[in-house]
């Protein structure tokens, strides 16, 4: 296993963009694989940035939004890459997150596409939510979402997700 990148701290859009583009530069893989890595990394990183239960005020005065704090990692293995992220969540969100990920893992490709369309259509344009990014991640990776939710304190759990991106694309 070779580490491509790892980061822990506040995540804003400039950082997401920098890391995703850095990864595109350093990874030695087929274009199609690099594109999938880029897409999955951005979805997971933006979920940390927007939905982590641990956040800080933006570091530039112009930034109005809070920045989610979390952890991001990309590793290269023999036949695939692993993209992983972790962040604090409110304890009461754990069950629904687990259920959503279990459902994504159970569905076939066509069913996932249908779920994505339905979820997207019902999503608020101002805040589309984390669910659609997870469905999309399951869909384009073609692999299960590995999820661990561990209790931290009375109000928080730690949500960790990893997904493999195959180096050989079958479709």
């Amino acid at each position: 296993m070779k580490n491509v990148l790892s980061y822990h701290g506040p995540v804003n859009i400039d950082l997401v963009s920098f890391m995703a583009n850095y990864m595109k530069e350093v990874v030695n893989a087929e274009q199609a694989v690099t594109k999938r890595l880029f897409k999955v990394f951005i979805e997971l990183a933006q979920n940390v940035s927007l939905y982590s239960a641990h956040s800080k005020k933006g570091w530039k005065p112009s930034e109005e939004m809070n920045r989610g704090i979390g952890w991001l990692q990309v590793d290269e293995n023999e036949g695939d890459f692993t993209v992983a992220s972790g962040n604090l969540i409110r304890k009461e969100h754990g069950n629904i997150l687990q259920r959503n990920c279990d459902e994504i893992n159970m569905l076939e490709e066509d069913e996932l596409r249908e779920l994505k369309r339905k979820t997207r259509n019902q999503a608020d344009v101002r805040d589309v939510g984390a669910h659609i990014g997870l469905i999309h991640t399951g869909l384009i990776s073609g692999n299960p979402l590995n999820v661990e939710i561990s209790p931290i304190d009375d109000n928080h759990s730690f949500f960790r997700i990893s997904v493999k991106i195959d180096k050989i694309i079958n479709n």
Partner: protein
Amino acid sequence: MKSLVIKSETDAPYYPSVNFDAESGVCEIAGESYMEEAYKFYLPLINWIKEFILNEKRPLTLNFKLIYFNTSSSRLIVDILETLRKLREDGHKIKVNWYFDPDDPDVKDEVEDFEIESGMDIQLMELH
């Protein structure tokens, strides 16, 4: 009516470039789209399109040349396409082309999902 032009910037590559030409009615969204609060970027584009079609009453062509878009941008793309579908049902002449990156293994399915979800048909063309 004025054209709507937004140039891409290297220090903010998560915004696409926009060129909505009021003279020809040919509109283009190109590049990458994964900004935060995507609605703040896209709602003015939807308003421009509505205003052009309802006031100018001329045909409109929208060319998507996006090489990457995240899921929250895709939510707004569906809104654009639904707006266009409704306007076309009212008799306005509208065409949508999607120039796809041939190296992207997922984009054709995504465009098909856009068609199903919005009811607007999209012509697929290869991006060179």
